[in-house]
């Protein structure tokens, strides 16, 4: 190794062991604004039986890479260069017919969203069988094999379910079906494009476990496309990190996690809140946003956001250089041997305040019927209580975190607080006054105390109105005179980190993070004392997530706000919350001090949730996990007694003697460790702490 000429990787190593060898892949999209180089010179390899992860943020080109391998790029995209060698054969050179024969039989694919990846009008059995029939399978045999596959991917009662339609399956079960389809012709390579992103934590754990098991049983190689470092750490043997359409770093997973050679990889890992982080600290966020693939910066794509950027980073594109066994990275700075110092946490703008004062929000025994007001001219719909008997309180300066899987009622709860969904039972007190039936969304009493930050910042901004108009609307309602609004808008936008020059843009011209800043600015414009944040960061890339979390905690401390912070990501909730409530099927199963709940969960559901969350730490991949079986029951028809009993690992499902769980609903009671839990047998199932 010489210092002056960094050795690039040898270009076509003749490794006969390779299952897949992608070399210099280039995929372009020809749009009216010019050519978008979505995949730009990407090379990597997959060996038989290996799990390779491609990790990157939105727009990094990881999905396009996956599709390019199977030649499934939608118009106007086109693979314009490189080679995709599958067992030595260049897939880009074979005929359409040959490619068709290879798809499914040799290389199969699993898609991100199981809701839409299955044909809604074909039975599950037919869809699996079709994968065999098109490759020459006989009808009857294919059906028998379909049944076998369904059983193999762990679908209970498979013979009956074979003739059911996708909509009769839950999300997790559908993803199992998609995997069964992929496995139908025993392919050698499985490309999994974000296979668990659309799933809840407990279901994600089930699917990841299934994939690992299949790999073990069938020896199939997996190319895992994901944005989640946790999933990478749990599943992969080797990792390819993509950014701006290029491979920026690749290597064995241990090396990447322990000694990343790329500032981006290192900072990304640092920006993730982690479950085992102790005392609250600031997250070291990466500034800016992932680049728009149609407008990549010159030089290293990461240079505008890089702590170490130098002039040459802006001028020339770094090439991949070898950094260790099988480990290479593309960075001018570290290529020269400069060490990667840990990212400094962002500075706080205000000191943490004492929590105290009268509660801003007090909820007692709240019930919300989401079917209220439905029904036709004649008759009403049956009530469905998405929130069923919930009590909580939030004080100024305090953050109450609320976690639960999708469908548990956490968003309904938030909407009921805002007056969007009518309350059907119990009481909601805001700023010490109980809400009456006349206090609907936006009434003076509510809006002056509480404001809402939405999950999807794009959906919550009117696409037709500029950001300035959206913020101004809030000021107008608050009664700010027209003359003073301009200054106020500037102040707000600066406060949330928006470029004031961009105020006249429409929302679609912003990145996700910026839009969420707009959403926050708009909420702040009403000068609330409490913010209800409904999954404010779950739609954002990891590097942006940290920025928004930091912004929110700054605001809380600066303005002495109370937060009701809703999220499904346990680590995010832990990071920001003082207290945590865990919700399951409309009720709280556990509530208490965040530290306490996380270090010593008392409810089996809390423990399972924590165990299920993938951790971005290779050392933890062999930890003992509790993987919950089954799915969340429907709130239309909740189970009797303890609502969790149908999935509880210590419940009647596993222990016949625990009839009490069926007969009697547990109430929230203080436990030995201080928090409250609604379980007949609290603390029995403890999360394995790191």
């Amino acid at each position, binding site marked *: 190794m010489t210092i002056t000429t960094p050795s690039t990787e040898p270009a076509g190593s003749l490794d006969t062991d390779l299952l897949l060898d992608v070399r210099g892949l280039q995929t372009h999209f020809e749009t009216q604004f010019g050519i978008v180089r979505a995949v730009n010179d990407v090379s990597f390899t997959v060996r038989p039986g290996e799990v390779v992860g491609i990790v990157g943020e939105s727009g990094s080109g990881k999905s396009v890479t996956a599709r390019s391998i199977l030649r499934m790029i939608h118009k106007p995209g086109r693979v314009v260069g490189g080679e995709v060698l599958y067992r030595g054969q260049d897939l880009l050179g074979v005929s359409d017919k040959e490619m*068709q024969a290879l798809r*499914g039989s040799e290389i*199969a694919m699993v898609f991100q969203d199981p809701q839409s*990846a299955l*044909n*809604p*009008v074909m039975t599950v059995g037919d869809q699996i069988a079709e*994968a065999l029939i*098109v490759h020459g399978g006989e009808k009857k045999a294919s059906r028998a094999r379909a049944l076998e596959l369904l059983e193999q991917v762990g679908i209970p009662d498979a013979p009956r379910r074979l003739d059911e339609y996708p*909509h009769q399956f839950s999300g997790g079960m559908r993803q199992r079906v998609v995997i069964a389809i992929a496995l139908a012709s025993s392919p050698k390579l499985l490309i999994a494009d974000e296979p668990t992103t659309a799933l809840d934590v407990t279901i994600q754990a089930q699917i990841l476990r299934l994939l690992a098991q299949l790999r073990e049983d069938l020896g199939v190689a997996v190319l895992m496309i994901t944005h989640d470092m946790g999933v990478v750490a749990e599943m992969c043997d080797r990792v390819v990190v993509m950014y701006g359409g290029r491979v920026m770093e690749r290597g064995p997973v241990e090396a990447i996690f322990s000694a990343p050679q790329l500032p981006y990889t290192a900072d990304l890992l640092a920006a993730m809140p982690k479950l085992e982080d102790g005392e609250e600290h600031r997250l070291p966020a990466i500034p800016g946003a992932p680049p728009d693939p149609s407008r990549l910066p010159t030089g290293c794509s990461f240079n505008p956001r890089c702590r170490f950027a130098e002039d040459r980073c802006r001028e020339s594109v770094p090439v991949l250089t070898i950094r260790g066994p099988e480990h290479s990275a593309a960075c001018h700075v570290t290529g020269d041997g400069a060490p990667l110092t840990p990212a400094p946490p962002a500075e706080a703008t205000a000191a943490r305040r004492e929590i105290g004062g009268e509660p801003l929000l007090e909820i007692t025994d709240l019930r919300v019927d989401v079917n209220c007001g439905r029904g036709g001219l004649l008759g009403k719909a049956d009530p469905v209580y998405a929130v069923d008997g919930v009590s909580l309180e939030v004080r100024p300066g305090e953050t109450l975190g609320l976690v639960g899987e999708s469908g548990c009622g956490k968003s309904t709860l938030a909407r009921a607080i805002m007056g969007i969904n009518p309350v059907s039972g119990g009481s909601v007190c805001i700023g010490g006054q109980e809400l009456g039936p006349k206090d609907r969304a936006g009434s003076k009493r509510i809006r002056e105390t509480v404001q809402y930050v939405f999950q999807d910042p794009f959906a919550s901004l009117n696409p037709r109105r500029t950001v300035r108009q959206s913020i101004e609307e809030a000021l107008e309602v608050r009664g700010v005179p027209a003359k003073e609004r301009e200054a106020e808008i500037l102040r707000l936008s600066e406060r949330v980190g928006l470029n004031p020059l961009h105020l006249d843009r429409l929302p679609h011209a912003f990145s996700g993070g910026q839009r969420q800043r707009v959403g926050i600015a708009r909420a702040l414009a009403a000068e609330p004392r409490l913010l209800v944040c409904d999954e404010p960061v779950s739609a954002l890339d990891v590097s942006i997530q940290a920025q928004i979390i930091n912004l929110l905690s700054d605001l809380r401390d600066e303005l002495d706000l109370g937060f009701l912070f809703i999220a499904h990501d346990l680590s995010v909730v832990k990071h920001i919350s003082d207290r945590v409530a865990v919700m399951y099927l409309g009720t709280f199963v556990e509530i208490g001090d965040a530290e306490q709940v996380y270090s010593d969960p008392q409810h089996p559901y809390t423990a399972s949730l924590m165990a299920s969350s993938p951790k971005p730490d290779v050392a933890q991949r062999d930890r003992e996990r509790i993987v919950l079986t089954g799915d969340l029951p429907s709130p239309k028809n909740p189970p009797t007694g303890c609502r969790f009993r149908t999935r509880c690992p210590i419940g009647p499902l596993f222990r016949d003697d625990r009839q009490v769980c069926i007969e009697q609903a547990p109430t929230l009671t203080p436990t030995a460790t201080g928090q409250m839990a609604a379980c007949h047998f609290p603390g029995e199932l403890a999360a394995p702490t790191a």
Partner: protein
Amino acid sequence: MIRYLVRKLPSVVLVLLVTSVIAFSLPRLVPGDPAALLAGPDASPQTIAAIRAELGLDQPYVTQYLHWMQGLFTGDLGTSLQYRRPVSELIGDRIGSTLELAVLAGLLLVVAGIGLGVAAGSSNRRWSRFLTEGTNTTMLAMPPFLAGLLLILVFGVALPVLPISGEVSVLSDPVIGIQYLILPAIALALPMAAGIARLVQTQMRSVQQEDFVDLATAKGVPSGRIYRRHVLRNSLGPAVVAIGIRFGDLLAGAVVIEAIFARNGIGQLAVTSAQASDYAVIQVVIVGTVFVAVMAQLLTEITLAALDPRIRLA
């Protein structure tokens, strides 16, 4: 499914009841007196008044309405003021003609609409897309009667292979009957088929973007099979809804088509009755067509359910 239909029943009944009130009052809002028409152009006011009394038109409206409703529930649709014949008979004489036309036109509508839509939705070549879309747009802009006139010109004058006037019941003579039906059915169906085709085409284009189509591709399914088994069935929903709504238009369009092709159908009956203020007939025709529309809508829902298990099994 049956439970679903039973659940729909009260609202269907309500719709029909309201319709009956509209159907009863609308023709009576039309100025003029059916008795005057019966009495003839030279009649004196005394004659007209006498005929009015004989027809029962001098009764209060409420009495007339209740009388009509009472009749409806006992299966008596009333008696035409103009022809003094039971309305059921007048309609019965024509329903066959209209049904034949509507069924064939409906069939054409479905076949041509979906066929053209599929052709346009699956064609990727520039010229074939241009051709199908051009045909489609022109057909959309072509009113049925103009299409009818054109057909009469072509087949009546230039190329006399199909009859352009009159009708023969398909039931009594299928071979000849079909020949009489072809041109009016085409004139009636084609312009509407263009609308259906457009829906199918748009829907197919959007379904092609769906993940499950990608999954099928990834399974190694050939593109022909993808269109047949994955894209097509998922693309028909809006077209089915539109056909359901358009079924009423088929009946309405039949008015003009029946006129220029000399067919004696319900459309003709409706027009002449409306112009002759034959309340007894129009009110039944209106209630009947709304009933048919409601039924068509139900049928649409049933078809949708058959096409889409999500609806069927919900």
